[in-house]
């Protein structure tokens, strides 16, 4: 997609999402994920740090974009906003990795196999899920991995849909906080 086309499409999706259009929001996030993957990979190649897991950075950035989407104004372009958030998150990750690099050698995790990043799966999220409480973890699993709608997830937990929404939002904020505090 041309940058100007992409910008127009993103802005349309952002406005629709603000109006509660879940489908538009999903398309936006998927398109953002692709964009971020390319951007993060390029950035890491340029500074010569290839073995950082790109997909984890993409996922952390998507979560930040989601939790901070009210900071975008409908009259502003989306791209600079996305790029600024992405830049901030990349810096956070590099800072954390820098700290980790000082750890003794036997604590450094095993290098990932080459195909792991191509699977578009991250590792941090699964590890951090383990630090959530039982109910929050169950909600996240129901909605993300098992693909339940809010209503069916609420039913299977025996809570109201409203309570589920609140709990889901809190879980996402908790995940973002864990990430910020230094990852899993």
């Amino acid at each position: 997609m041309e940058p100007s086309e992409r910008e127009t499409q993103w802005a349309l999706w952002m406005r629709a999402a603000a109006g509660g259009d879940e489908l538009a929001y999903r398309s936006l996030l998927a398109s953002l994920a692709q964009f971020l993957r390319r951007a993060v990979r390029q950035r890491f190649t340029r500074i010569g740090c290839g073995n950082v897991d790109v997909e984890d950075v993409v996922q952390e950035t998507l979560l930040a974009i989601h939790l901070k989407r009210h900071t975008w104004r409908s009259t502003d372009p989306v791209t600079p906003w996305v790029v600024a958030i992405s830049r901030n998150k990349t810096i956070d990750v590099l800072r954390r990795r820098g700290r980790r690099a000082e750890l003794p050698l036997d604590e450094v995790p095993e290098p990932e196999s080459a195909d792991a990043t191509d699977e578009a799966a991250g590792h941090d999220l699964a590890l951090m899920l383990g630090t959530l409480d039982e109910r929050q973890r169950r909600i996240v699993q129901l909605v993300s991995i098992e693909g339940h709608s809010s209503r069916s997830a609420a039913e299977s937990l025996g809570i109201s849909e409203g309570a589920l929404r609140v709990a889901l939002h809190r879980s996402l904020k908790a995940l973002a906080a864990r990430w910020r505090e230094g990852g899993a």
Partner: protein
Amino acid sequence: MKTDQLVQLLARDTTLRQSPGRSLLAALLPAGFVTATGFALLVGVRPDLPAALRSPWFDLKVLLNAALWLAATGLLLRLARPGASLRGWWPALCAVPIVLVLAIGVELLRVPPDQWWTLAQGSNSTWCLRVIPALAGAPLLAALLALRNSAPAHPARTGAMAGLMSAGLAATLYALHCPDDSPLFVGLWYVLAAAIVTAAGALLGARWLRW
């Protein structure tokens, strides 16, 4: 977790929070009220206010502080949003110290050197250094708490701007009380007081505004 699973998860969360501008306004209105009440009850305007209004140095002192407050608020609203353009507000903020330096120059030419220090020292400089930071406390804390809901790309810088905004508000009020109008006094004590509040904002911002 796969990224498309995360996308699905995020799309289900429809909670949309208040824009940074609104939460900042909602926090600053009560905080501004606290500051204004504190000023009215504990400090008060100077008794010769009607006469002082006709003095150019008094008017300039109040206007410069009000301009600082306005420009810092404008910049703060932009710093709260990632990628937002700061154009337009930086020149407005920079105009404040430029005008102050020009005024200091005029004052230095106007009065003989043996009076410089008397004018700069004024009559209650330590009171100025205490009252401005004290009055700035409520708006600074309110602004920082509200900004936690935003996404500043530079937490320390944004905290400093919240400090400058609060100092501008506090100093605008304090200027109505303060009997010292010489730019030499303003350039020394008001600047020092604003620097204290700005530094406090930067320190707190670096801790509280990360996201």
